[in-house]
């Protein structure tokens, strides 16, 4: 196995396999980062709230932050696989120039993973802080959300007992959802707005969002809740303030509270 001998005197970064790893690393980082973030962001569709927009950018940031790590492992693995392969029923000779350990590599690896970990934490905590603050918005409208096997219903707190099975929201108005359940656990997920909170029997949980796009979006139950869990879904209609008022008035007539 003399063919794999490289002169001991050569600097480590001048070895061909190291150069190959470096090249592959650059290419793969770009490919993994771009493909990973684009495919995921496109699958998530257009955001209908700032919360969702920040989820999408978080996933983009994390993908780009993880890309160099994944690319490095891939580059090393591919290079190792390209260099010396041995087929047959008997083992190849022992590898030459093996190291048991390398304090420099170990230290660098741990430092890099710690930095990346802290980076992910800080980015996440900033967004979390922003999302939590929106719960305290005093100007927000309130909607009580009730999950019951296997239908959602919505109670518009400031609107004299108007209730509906599909959600209507005025655009650009902060809304706080107070979520509860009549029976088992459900999970209230407004998909395109990127918010989700469980509906627990006997407790009220809260989540908040400001829809910023007029359109029709999906509410899905995200916690297995029994027989018709798959069908525990409804729509959110985000409309202009004027349309919302109109809808409230017409609904108050036909679907108001039971006196």
């Amino acid at each position, binding site marked *: 196995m003399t063919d*794999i001998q490289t002169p001991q005197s050569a600097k480590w970064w001048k070895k061909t*396999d190291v150069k190959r790893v470096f090249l592959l690393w650059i290419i793969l980082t770009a490919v993994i980062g771009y493909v990973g973030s684009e*495919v995921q962001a496109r699958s*998530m*569709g257009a955001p209908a709230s700032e*919360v*969702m927009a920040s*989820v999408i950018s*978080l996933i983009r940031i*994390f993908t780009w932050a993880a890309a160099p790590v994944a690319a490095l492992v891939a580059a*090393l*693995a591919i*290079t190792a*696989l390209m*260099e*010396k*392969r*041995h087929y047959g*029923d008997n*083992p*190849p*000779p*022992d*590898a*030459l*120039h093996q*190291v*048991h*350990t*390398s304090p420099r*590599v*170990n230290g660098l*690896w741990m430092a890099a*993973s710690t930095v990346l970990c802290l980076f992910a934490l800080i980015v*996440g905590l900033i967004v*979390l802080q922003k999302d939590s603050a929106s719960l305290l918005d005093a100007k927000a409208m309130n909607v009580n959300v009730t999950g019951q096997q296997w239908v959602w219903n919505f109670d518009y707190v400031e609107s004299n007992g108007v209730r509906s099975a599909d959600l209507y929201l005025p655009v650009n108005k902060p809304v706080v959802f107070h*979520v509860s359940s009549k*029976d*088992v*656990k459900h*999970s209230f*997920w407004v*998909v*395109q707005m990127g918010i*989700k*909170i*469980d509906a627990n*029997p*006997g407790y009220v*949980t*809260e989540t908040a969002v400001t829809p910023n796009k007029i359109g029709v979006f*999906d509410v*899905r*139950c*995200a916690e*297995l809740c*029994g*027989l018709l869990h*798959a069908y525990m*879904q409804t729509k959110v209609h985000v409309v202009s303030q004027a349309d919302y008022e109109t809808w409230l008035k017409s609904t108050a007539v036909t679907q108001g509270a039971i006196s």
Partner: protein
Amino acid sequence: MTTMMERSASAPGHSAKRKPLIERLNIVTALALGTVSAVVVWQLALKFMPDNADTAFFFNREDKISLLSLIAWFIGFMVGIGALIGPFRWLLGKDLNHDENMFYAGKDQGIKRYFRYTTDHKVVGIQYLVVTIIIFFVGGVLAMLIRTNLGHAQGGWIQPQTYNAIVGWHGIIMIVATIIMITGPFGNFVMPIMIGARDMAFPRLNALSFWLIVAAIPPVFISFFTGGITTGWSAYNPLASQAGLGMNGYIAFICIFALSTMVAGANITTTVIRMRAKGMTWNRTPIFIYGVVASVALALPAFPVFFLSQIMSGLDRAFATSFYNTTGGGSGWLYENLFWIMGHPEVYVILIPAVAALMEMAPVFTRAPLFSFNIAVMGIGGICGLSILVWAHHMYISGWAPLLSAPFMITTELISIPTGMLFLVLIGTIWRGNLWMTMPLMSIFALLWNFMIGGITGIYLSDVPADAFLHGSMYVTAHFHYTLMGAGLTGALASLVFWFPKMTGRMFDKKLSWVAFWLVQIGFNVAFMGMFLVGLAGQPRRVESYAAMFSRGNLITTIGAYTIMAGMLVLLHGVIISWRSGIKAPMNPWQSKTLEWTVPNPVPLENFDVLPIVTGDPYHYGKAQS
């Protein structure tokens, strides 16, 4: 063996001279006694159990009856297999003599010892292997039913409650299979030889841990025909309280399985701490041993909590207590906490031995020393330590404790550091190695690929705002399949091929192992990439039917799943063919340096004539230093 027929089967153990009962007990008497006890208790309970009081809020008479019958099954089975003979004899003050112990160890019994309460760790290892394969087969069939039903957008091929039951059954059966898939077969068969011991520290507990699993399986099968586990494997309350009688099968199953895990955990931990060969210091102990011990030691605190959570669930159902029922003062959040205090360590119980097994194989198939042994140990230890502090990341959006989201996010993301260490060790070992192109070696590459994807998506999920979008979606399902199957099962399949020659005396058919490997890995990545996409697009988990917009992704997943099925069946074929008529294996076909390859095939009853003395670490391939 049949001379003592006049003795009553219910009076175990008298004088050892009169051919004791232990020779007549086997799986047949166990199944018979278990079934008879269950039926008798069932009928008696039907007859004598008082009706529900009119005031009873819950409909619990049937739950009481079915739980009682399952307990009777369990006790009957364990008595029938002979688990109580030892303790009973000890109580009488007539402990087992040498001949009886040798009988227990399965001396000169041929195939029959696999159907008895045999204490030899090699028998237990083979028993575990066969049972694991059977469980995987059942779980795989269920997976195919799920994927077939989800092949197109319109539900209704399987009706919803059956579908939910299949999802729950697939989940729990696969979780159990993956928990035992490495520590069961290989932890039992290989580990004691690898550390240079003659057997486990507590051979009878070893047999007990295996037969407890066998006793646990019928309840979960029966549950499918009595309403099913319609709650998913997590069996969240109060949904579990609302579900049909099948839930009682789940409760019994988990309780018995948790017992088995606790027993096995205590046994394996003790064995490794106390029984390593002379000279095998912790620095010379193979990394696979670290993986196995870490796995079972992690299970030791985790599974009693699971046990307890199910006892409370059973009480809620059968006695109308209200641990988890809000209207009675309980809380579903209590269940979630208990469940995930078990549930998160549990995923590392599955993962760590798989990675450790591949770390064990990496030096063998690259002919290079393991890179940074200390980092590997630290990685395993770090994951173990952190994994008990992260459970509530499964509850970010449950509303239970919004203020704890940030702390749990921190502990969860910190796990990426020790996990990264495992990557470093594997990649460092492969780097500039002489790669011996075998299925176990390729499994290392597959693990790096799959676990990288599983790990990175795990970071997205650990982030609270991103989790608020992703939680409960197919994205999560794809993520944990990448870790448990893409990483965990890949390690287990590599272990199977790697240790097959020692366990069966024959080589695993090489061609079949390659075909199976590629079919499984390609199918796997196709299947779960498709699942990531539908998850991101907003498809919830555990749905029987979905909107047409998810059709394409689901079809991709189903096609991938069928490819996995083909690969798994090829692998099963390989196991059967190779075991029956494979090439006879030499003592050390891989030229490995660990101790299990120093004993002949088949491995003699007590492994070593003379216990080995260890003088170095098992990874001194190639030049020592450069």
